[in-house]
């Protein structure tokens, strides 16, 4: 019975192997191998089987040729194939053939070296490798200017400190270093000036949050403290001069942060009032930076 997959490579190998087997076994082996091939699944498996059958056909043909063939009744299939499996000692085994092939290859190589073939090969190699001197001089060109480096702003992740804002909005909380009150000496002038009710200014509504101006360097170093800053403010709550550190906190970073806060608060200061009327003045107030609990 012919196998359906006639176009299969494995089928072709099986048929090829069977046809090159001894003639009295060819039809039986072809049918038997094709039947076993039909039980195979997968291209690789079928191909392996086909190659194996191809090899088996060669072995069987070799053994059959070396054996003393006896009458065979392969058509019925019930009679044994009286094939003598004893190999003819005069025949070479596969191992012997491989050994002889290796010896032959070595003999050819030795012959090639002895007769000078190798010399010609060796002489050919330098010629093939001989080459001219390559002029590697190139015109000297100044390298193109490098593009300006771009530095990415480093991102510093600092854990948020717990700070206590000690910006005191209430006028009573601000310690003002006020200039000494000029006390008019009582003279003979009989007319005494009317009393003036003076209320010093300070940070007013919209004043920046102290935490926002806590210097990062001070945070990393764990610095905290209080700085007394003096500011001069006009009637609109704007700075009229650069703020000054009246009393340092002992930390340059804290002092710098205090000045930054004082500058940023321009326009949000509460002016000093005299008898309820805003006047330009200078006063001092405390800025405290410390970690919150």
């Amino acid at each position, binding site marked *: *019975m012919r196998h359906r997959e006639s176009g299969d490579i494995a089928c072709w190998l099986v048929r090829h192997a069977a046809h090159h087997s001894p003639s009295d076994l060819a039809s039986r082996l072809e049918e038997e191998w094709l*039947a*076993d091939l039909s*039980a195979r699944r997968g291209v690789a498996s079928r191909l392996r089987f086909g190659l194996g*059958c191809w*090899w088996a056909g060669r072995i069987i043909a070799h053994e059959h040729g070396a054996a003393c063939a006896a009458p065979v009744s392969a058509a019925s299939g*019930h009679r044994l194939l009286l094939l003598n499996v004893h190999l003819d000692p005069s025949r070479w085994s596969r191992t012997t053939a491989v050994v002889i092939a290796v010896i032959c290859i070595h003999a050819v190589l030795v012959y090639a070296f002895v007769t000078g073939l190798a010399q010609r090969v060796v002489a050919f190699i330098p010629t093939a490798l001989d080459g001219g001197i390559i002029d590697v001089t190139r015109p000297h060109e100044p390298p193109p200017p490098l593009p300006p480096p771009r530095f990415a702003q480093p991102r510093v992740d600092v854990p948020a400190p717990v700070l206590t804002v000690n910006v005191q909005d209430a006028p009573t909380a601000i310690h003002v270093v006020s200039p000494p009150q000029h006390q008019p000496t009582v003279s003979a002038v009989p007319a005494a000036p009317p009393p003036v009710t003076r209320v010093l200014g300070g940070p007013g509504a919209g004043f920046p949050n102290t935490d926002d101006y806590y210097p990062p360097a001070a945070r990393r170093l764990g610095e905290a403290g209080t700085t007394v800053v003096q500011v001069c403010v006009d009637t609109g709550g704007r700075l009229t001069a650069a703020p000054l550190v009246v009393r340092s906190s002992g930390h340059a970073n804290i002092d710098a942060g205090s000045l930054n806060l004082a500058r940023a608060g321009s326009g949000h200061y509460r002016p000093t009032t005299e008898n309820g009327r805003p006047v330009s003045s200078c006063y001092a107030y405390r800025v405290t930076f410390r970690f919150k609990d």
Partner: protein
Amino acid sequence: MGKRDRDVRISLQTLRALEAFLENPADELSGADVQKRSGLASGTLYPILLRLESAGWFLSRWENIDPATAGRPRRRLYRLTTNGLTRASEIFASLGRGVLA
């Protein structure tokens, strides 16, 4: 038969093929079945089957089916002969074990 018995070359692959039949000596196995049991490649197995058959250790026959009805081609089935069973048992007994590792 005795002369042919002496001619059988017992290799490791031959022992594996015989072992596949000795699992159940009454079984009739196709070449594909023996391959599954022994793990031998087809290029090794089929020459062994032919050698052992020609030596009288195996008998083979075509499977008695109708390929059109079965939907597959008929297979060649092999089984141990009495002589083959005796000889195989002797060989494995001489090796001191029943089955191959």
